[in-house]
């Protein structure tokens, strides 16, 4: 629990996605806490295509582990610009390094949404609270 790493170069959702600015895009992944809860990740299903619009807080796909399935929610609204195809064959990349492994990139349509996300300290506090 204590050794989970939440880098400070990005923001987080309460649903345990991370969002990191990369030029004009925002890369989206899942946090170390999410990965710890899920366990061995066996399947990533991205339900959107490049060019599709996503809306903040809406599911853009699912991530599955041996035991369970979890939705992935868009941290910001915008257009999908990239999908990490490497995860089709190697979902375990997320277990190996979830802070590096992004699922999709979004060109945000409303920059204020990013600013409204949790920063590292707020997210760490949120995780602590949800792990009681």
């Amino acid at each position, binding site marked *: 629990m204590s050794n989970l790493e939440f880098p400070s170069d990005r923001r987080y959702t309460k649903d345990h996605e991370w969002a990191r600015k990369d030029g004009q895009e925002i890369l989206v992944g899942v946090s170390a806490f999410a990965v710890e809860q899920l*366990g061995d990740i*066996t*399947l990533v*299903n991205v339900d959107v295509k490049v060019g599709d619009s996503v809306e903040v807080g809406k599911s853009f796909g699912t991530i599955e*582990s041996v*035991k369970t399935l979890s939705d992935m929610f868009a941290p910001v609204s915008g257009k999908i610009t990239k999908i990490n195809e490497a995860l*089709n064959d190697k979902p375990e990349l997320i277990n190996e390094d979830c802070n590096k492994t992004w699922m999709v990139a979004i060109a945000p349509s409303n920059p204020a949404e990013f600013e409204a996300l949790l920063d590292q300290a707020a997210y760490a506090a949120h995780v602590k609270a949800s792990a*009681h």
Partner: protein
Amino acid sequence: MNDTNETLRRTPLFDEHVKLGGRIVPFAGFEMPVQYKGITEEHLAVRTRAGMFDVSHMGELLLTGEHAGAVVDYLITSDASKLGDGQAMYTCGCNEQGTILDDLLVYRHTADKWMVVCNASNHAKMSEHFRKAALNHCEFRDETFDTALVALQGPKAYDILAKVGGDGPELAKLPSFNLRPAVLAGAKTTVARTGYTGEDGCEIFIENKDAVKVWSAIMEAGQAFGISPAGLGCRDTLRLEARLSLYGNDIDETTNPLEAGLAWIVKLDKASDFLGKAALIKIKEQGLKRKIAGFEMVGRGIARHGYPLLDMQGKPVGVCTSGSPSPTLNKNIGLGYLPTEMTKIGTQFKVDCRGKAVDAVVVKVPFYKRAS
């Protein structure tokens, strides 16, 4: 969560699970470890070396007396008279309608001492069921909360027991589905060559007070053999690969053993009557409309309990009862009920994975069988 926690029980091994880093979840009224290091790692440890499970949540019902065997025999679909002293069998208990109350292991210690092990999720129901049937016929005692049950499973299980000492070195001679008393770590136990993983191994019944002593001795002896503590998570993936039914998933009071692929434990020709016999004879005569089938996902998707199964035109025709990635086979596998005519090996169908129809095919079961 806190409200329900107050009513949850802990097994005598709870502190060991916490020490080993187990992730504790509520399960059938108990706080149980779902995993320690990870489901896949623990799964593979059981397949290649050994894993130790705490299954103390399961129910132990003891029936004693001259008529104990007859009482047990009436409540199960298999033929209890086929068991000799020190033998066990897998069976199930049905209600009058011929649907499944629980799947069970029945152990005959002696002609007048029988033990029935039931699922934790059915414990209250089955305890009452056997208690009522025993009234005026034999003694009944529910030993569930006095008994710890540890399952040591995997190809190294008997090497480890030999190293534990006491009667451990003798246990490798125990035939499959046999049981015997055995002193381990100075404690009196009963060891049965049974399990729920598809591997060789045993289940060890221990008095609560000795549970930690025996668990620790096995864990220590097992270090040299690569033993891993194993949680309920991998118990489920292991049993699914071995195509062992899970009550509440694959079987329940809406399913009968014939359609559930358990015809081999239904002895309609046994001399004695049993609860559900007449209904099952009728069900058999009428023919089965649906049957459980094992399948593999062909497309990208993991079938899960409750997902609809579709024919190739997309029409719902059945339901997935168990589904998971298979760590041993590196495939996504599952069990589900399909119309009988669709249960032939090689039949193609689809699984409705949350709105996405993913291709699947009926395959031979068990998915995994250990080399003998």
